[in-house]
């Protein structure tokens, strides 16, 4: 039985359980709701949760675990030589799974009978052709071992699915039965449901945390792999970024410093644009603007947030870059000669800053609005002007939230890629001149991974090291900000 059916059955069971348990509770109180410990709906909810939560939890775990277990078991049948290399092993297993899935699909389409599928042999049947006929394309002819393992895999999956169906439904029934038996007028259903809700909420929080940990782990192994092929000191302290794709590893210089320098430089320019403009427009909108002005300007500002970053990138490339060049370039009106091409840190930074204005302004506006009116009244009542009130009362009260908004903008800036690719250029340079082309960590991750490089040379693996380092840096930034906000809160709340 497919998992979706099991899911539906459990849900139906839970709904029925709700009605049954509610009825039983009412019956035990002789139909008088006042004699129950909890409201009738709590008894129903309790039974419904008992039916659904453990069973669905088991189903979820099973769905994740079964393929892993089958994989592990079946792959032990592969030739020793293939098993030794992780890459080849996973390729071989992908073939096995593909054949197995293909056979299952052919059976479900009626192109093969069940017996036929189970008794195929490489010599007698052209498996590749028969699967191709139902739309499953295989890369190569199927060999003896692959077919054998695929059959093994199918058997395992089939048995697993049967056990899964039985087990999940049994758990649902048993747990519902227990809850139903407990349902009586003095059963403290309200407290039980409350505790169950708490556990569900904790579980939801755990999923978020576990995913984060999972992301870190998926980066960590490749990062370690990279550092086993390229010295860490040269990566972190190297001042040149010059990957060579031709030779295998030899000749590449993968220094991290110019990239992080570009990232921070462009982000700082962007924030220098976005924070004052965003904050000032938030103050104007929340404190000075009349209702009609506000109702027009605020949505207009938020439209900025909806523009895709690639469009900003084009704007940087086609408008801002040439404009800056005509002012600061060699033949520019200012005769400064600071800029030699349209793509520069300044171009990307300015455009990114414009992109971030709505982030800062929208969040800050909400935060400023949530400062209680009593606080403003207190200040006005002492004879303070509007700007004195804003500077000395409202902004300090809203500061933790505003810092949060700025940090959000900062992480957007650090993670932004498209504007950089189009606006800042591709040359990694450690320069102080903001009118020079620069590039960022994210842009380089993209350029290292596009193309057909395999994940076995430092030139591609470096992307993981870059990602990991960026992750650590933004994490540190967030922790720092949390610390600042908390210190501030302690002082004033």
């Amino acid at each position, binding site marked *: 039985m497919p998992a979706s059916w099991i899911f539906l059955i459990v849900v139906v069971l839970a709904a029925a359980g709700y009605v049954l348990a509610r009825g039983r509770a009412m019956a035990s109180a002789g139909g008088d709701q006042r004699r129950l410990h909890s409201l009738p709906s709590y008894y129903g909810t309790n039974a419904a949760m008992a039916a659904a939560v453990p069973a669905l939890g088991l189903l979820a775990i099973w769905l994740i675990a079964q393929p892993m277990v089958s994989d592990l078991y079946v792959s032990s049948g592969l030739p020793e030589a293939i098993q030794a290399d992780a890459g080849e092993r996973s390729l071989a297993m992908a073939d096995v799974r593909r054949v197995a899935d293909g056979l299952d699909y052919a059976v479900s389409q009626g192109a093969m009978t069940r017996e036929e599928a189970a008794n195929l042999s490489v010599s007698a049947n052209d498996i590749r052709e028969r699967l191709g006929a139902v739309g499953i394309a295989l890369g190569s002819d199927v060999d003896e071992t692959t077919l054998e393992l695929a059959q093994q895999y199918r058997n395992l999956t089939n048995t697993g699915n049967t056990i899964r169906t039985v087990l999940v439904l049994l758990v649902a029934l048993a747990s519902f039965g227990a809850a139903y038996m407990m349902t009586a007028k003095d059963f403290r259903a309200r407290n039980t449901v409350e505790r169950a809700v708490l556990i569900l909420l904790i579980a939801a929080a755990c999923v978020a945390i576990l995913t984060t940990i999972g992301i870190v782990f998926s980066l960590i192994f490749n990062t370690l792999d990279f550092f086993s092929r390229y010295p860490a000191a040269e990566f972190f302290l190297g001042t040149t970024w010059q990957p060579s794709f031709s030779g295998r590893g030899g000749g590449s210089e993968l220094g991290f410093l110019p990239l992080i320098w570009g990232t921070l430089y462009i982000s700082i320019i962007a924030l220098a644009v976005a924070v004052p403009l965003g904050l000032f427009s938030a103050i104007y909108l929340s404190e000075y603007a009349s209702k009609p002005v506000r109702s027009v300007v605020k949505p207009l500002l938020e439209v900025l947030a909806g523009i895709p970053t690639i469009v900003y990138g084009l704007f940087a490339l086609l408008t801002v870059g040439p404009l800056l060049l005509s002012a600061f370039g060699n033949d520019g009106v200012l005769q400064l000669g600071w800029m030699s091409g349209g793509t520069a840190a300044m171009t990307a930074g300015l455009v990114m800053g414009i992109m971030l204005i709505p982030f800062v302004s929208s969040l800050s506006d909400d935060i400023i609005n949530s400062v209680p009116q009593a*606080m403003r009244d207190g200040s006005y009542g002492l004879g303070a002007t509007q700007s004195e009130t804003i500077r*000395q009362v409202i902004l300090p009260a809203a500061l933790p939230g505003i810092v949060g908004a700025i940090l959000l903008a900062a992480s957007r800036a650090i993670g932004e890629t498209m504007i950089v690719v189009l606006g800042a250029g591709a040359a990694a340079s450690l320069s102080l001149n903001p009118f020079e082309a620069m590039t960022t960590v994210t842009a380089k991750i993209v350029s290292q991974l596009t193309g057909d490089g395999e994940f076995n040379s430092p030139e591609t693996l470096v992307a993981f090291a870059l990602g990991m380092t960026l992750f650590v840096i933004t994490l540190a930034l967030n922790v720092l900000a949390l610390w600042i906000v908390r210190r501030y809160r302690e002082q004033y709340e």
Partner: protein
Amino acid sequence: MYDVPNSERTVTATDTKIAAKGVQVYYGDTHAIKDVDVQIADKTVTAFIGPSGCGKSTFLRCLNRMNDTIDICRVEGDIHIDGEDIYDKRVDPVQLRAKVGMVFQKPNPFPKSIYDNVAYGPRIHGMARNKAELDDIVESALRRAALWNEAKDRLQAPGTGLSGGQQQRLCIARAVATEPEILLMDEPCSALDPIATAQVEELIDELRQNYAVVIVTHSMQQAARVSQKTAFFHLGNLVEYDDTNKIFTNPTDKRTESYITGRIG
């Protein structure tokens, strides 16, 4: 008041500090104050009493134009302070509020330290020439609001961390520190214990030597103790306004009598 610095203003020694005539206040369609005439004397404590929701706070907020900050609120009629119309276009409400201080019904300390809360007004109005003078202003304001003993060791602690009654006294200290000519106090003792109440009443009595004080209170005893004049509001009307003695011993209006003897409200 027309944007003239405090020092250049000549004090006219009229007896009447505030003269209100035909004041109407509307919140949208709600008619909250109905045609109120009242003359509030200088160097006097005037008490506003009346049942909850009758418009005491609303009328008080008219006197320093705090109602300006409420969008739906509309004020009609004349209110003159020292003979000048405070709703005149040329009047700067900011200057007005520096002269007419206010203690709000709900304590609203700023999210700043106790010291900075009290120093807020003096700093804005440049009342202290140096840190030492500011320290003195803060100390004397806190003393007068009967908060000094509790606060002197934690001046840098946040004002929001004080208890409800302490916050109320902090707000009194904050208003007093600005040295207004008129002090409007909206139920300043609602969260105070008898000892602190007595100290605040002492302060009110002391302020009377130089200022006009208007106090809203739900305590008849307090009105009788501290005020010389009493105004009784009922459903947005000013029912009776007279010497406190007269109101509490021999009220003219039946509604006043019922209220002070505890039959309405």
